[in-house]
């Protein structure tokens, strides 16, 4: 049985989330929101064909996306590409995040997952994005899920731990909320919605649900965990909507890279185009946005 006592009702959850992401963000708020979305971004490449050169290009873009624009928060890569990323961002404020624990499925023995984690940290990763073991979760072995997160948290040492729930695979909002509560109890520094590798990643309702879990955890324990949204956020409009959702649910104190991230690969292009529009009043051509 799911131990979490928090109940969730889909209809009202979805209605409230839809209302929040529909906030009308204009003028100065829009400009500030674009800067925030860039500064809170985990610029990501997670493909089997990633190479050190590809990662170096991504890092350069993350450090300096456009003249005057802020750096992104982190570069997110596979463990084998951590050394390349660490070298490329050396001396910069940009962090390196590594997925670990048999991303994206999480179906490897625990000792393998722990070793992957310690090696990524040893290679210089500042942040670890682990996936929860959905196989254990869906089989009802909640204690094992929690123990595993605790073990990975310990293996992270001083690195930040983001726990990917892969909400789209958990089957119900109540199950997602239960997974949130397990991850927070086990010491997750961030809750993260998705791997970005399945169809349903971050929806407004899922994001709201995670915010509510973080808010309740902070109310009960005083520990303020962060939120990372990943997968499917490709436009400025959608990013601004999520900022509004986080701002109104967790408060403006969460609108900082220390507590909020958007994991994305293509969102930066549109943010830079919209930023250009906000600064100059004209839409630029995509050809003027340097991609990695």
């Amino acid at each position: 049985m799911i131990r979490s006592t928090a109940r969730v009702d889909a209809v009202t959850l979805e209605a409230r989330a839809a209302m929040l992401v529909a906030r009308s963000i204009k003028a100065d708020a829009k400009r500030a929101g674009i800067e925030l979305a860039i500064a809170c971004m985990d610029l990501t490449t997670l493909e089997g064909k990633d190479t050190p050169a590809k990662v170096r290009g991504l890092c350069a873009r993350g450090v300096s996306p456009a003249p005057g624009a802020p750096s992104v928060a982190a570069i997110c890569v596979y463990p084998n590409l951590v050394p390349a990323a660490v070298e490329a961002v050396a001396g910069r404020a940009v962090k390196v995040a590594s997925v670990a624990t048999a991303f994206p499925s999480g179906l490897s023995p625990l000792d393998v997952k722990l070793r992957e984690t310690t090696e990524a940290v040893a290679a210089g990763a500042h942040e670890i994005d682990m996936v929860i073991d959905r196989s254990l979760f869906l089989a009802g072995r909640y204690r094992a899920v929690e123990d595993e997160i605790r073990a990975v948290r310990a293996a992270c040492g001083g690195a930040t731990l983001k726990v990917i729930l892969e909400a789209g695979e958990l089957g119900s909002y109540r199950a997602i909320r239960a997974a949130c509560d397990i991850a927070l109890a086990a010491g997750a520094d961030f809750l993260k919605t998705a791997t970005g590798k399945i169809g349903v990643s971050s929806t407004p309702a899922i994001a709201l649900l995670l915010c509510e879990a973080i808010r309740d955890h902070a109310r009960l324990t005083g520990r303020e965990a962060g939120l990372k949204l990943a997968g499917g956020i490709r436009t400025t409009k959608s990013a601004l909507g999520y900022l509004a959702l986080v701002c109104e649910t967790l408060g403006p104190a969460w609108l900082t890279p220390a507590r909020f991230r958007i994991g994305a690969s293509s969102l930066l292009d549109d943010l830079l185009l919209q930023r250009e529009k906000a600064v100059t009043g004209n839409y630029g051509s995509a050809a003027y946005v340097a991609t990695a």
Partner: protein
Amino acid sequence: MSRATENAAAFAYAPSLESTAPVAIRERYGLFIGGEWAPAADDRTFATINPATEETLALVAHGSAADVDRAVRAARRGYEKYWRKLRPAERAKYVYRIARVLSERAREFAILETLDGGKPIRESRDFDLPQATAHFFYHAGWADKLAWAVDGAERPRPLGVVGAIVPWNFPLMIAAWKIAPALACGNTVVLKPAETTPLTALALAGVCAEADLPPGVVNVVTGDGATGAALVEHPDVDKISFTGSTEVGKGIRRATAGTPKRLGLELGGKSAFIVFDDAPLDQTIEGIVSAIFFNAGHVCCAGSRLLLQESIAEDVTDRLRLRLASLRHGDPLDKNTDIGAINSRAQRDKIAELVRSGIEEGATLVQHDWTPPERGFWYPASFFTNVQPTYRIAREEIFGPVLSILTFRTPDEAIERANNIPYGLSAGVWSSSGALSMYVAERLSAGVVWCNTFNRFDPSSPFGGYKESGFGREGGLTGLRAYLET
């Protein structure tokens, strides 16, 4: 301050005002009688103002008993000469046409509703207008299928002339609730809008003209309570459909007693919103926000009495306190405003008076911290804790953004407390147990019981009250039959 912190602060939403450009408000409005615009017989007018600014929007004809008489005669002529003779399928086409014109002009109507009544544009745009048009579309479909709506009646007949008197909280939508079924069933209508919000009703008269409705089928007579009373007392009106206060409703019932007039009353409420310990709490908070802060609590079915199971009372109150702080008060035309203006000075004063009584009787007031603009009528979102069932704020309709929180111990005590009131319009039941929700719902004396939701409306779902919340239903088959001789 770091750059990121500055950006977080700067993210405070910039004003996002709906443009009023699509709306052309005339300086003066006459009465709409027999398809023509005309001033009041004695040429009297009154000003309708924007409650957010106190600026006059227009001068509106003040209809007297003589004007009401002209309108009822026009409605009778429209009925005898055109409307009752029309084939039902043709009638349907007219009602469809109204629905379509209204849909096309929805933005204009939403802005007008917000200007005249003070409700947030988000609500008039996303609720009032979609609901109003939905009622015309829904009832258009019934016009040629009435034999299926009434058991055993081969050809159900219309009643004749309907007097529709509507309030200021949902001026267009409630007008649609009455006009749409009345027309679909073959009746003609004299509409009397509320004194503080006549503009969308007058614009609706324009839609009827645009839809080429035969003269006299819909008439609009603006004015005050005396104008409404003249309509109620007119001997040639076959039915009165009234939405408004219980006090006025009682007067109408007295005035129509002993006459052949049909009567439908949709009156006040003090509805219970019951939360059990297994409720989905974060969604419950949103339900409470909808129940009491939607349209600034200017809602007859508002869930204004929150009944919390004692074991979760503190938790829910804490959550609500947090949520209260995030409500956005201000300019009703701003697309991000959650709570707009109070409809009138009189209403604002009434809310303030009841809140004072709550404090004096010993309840604890929690209020959104906000300094309202100097002009206009405002009241911040508020709730009371430490409310005893005997307090006025637990028994009287406040009709503003003010919630009274009480507690209960068991389901049966919740039912008893919910029903211990002269009203019975709506109720909310929040629980994760379907069995418990059904047990409670079937024991509540309320016309509508919403389970794990609130303020959900659909034209196919009847709405109306128990006890002093009135009688008769609007919407659905029950609502339709109220406009037919069956």
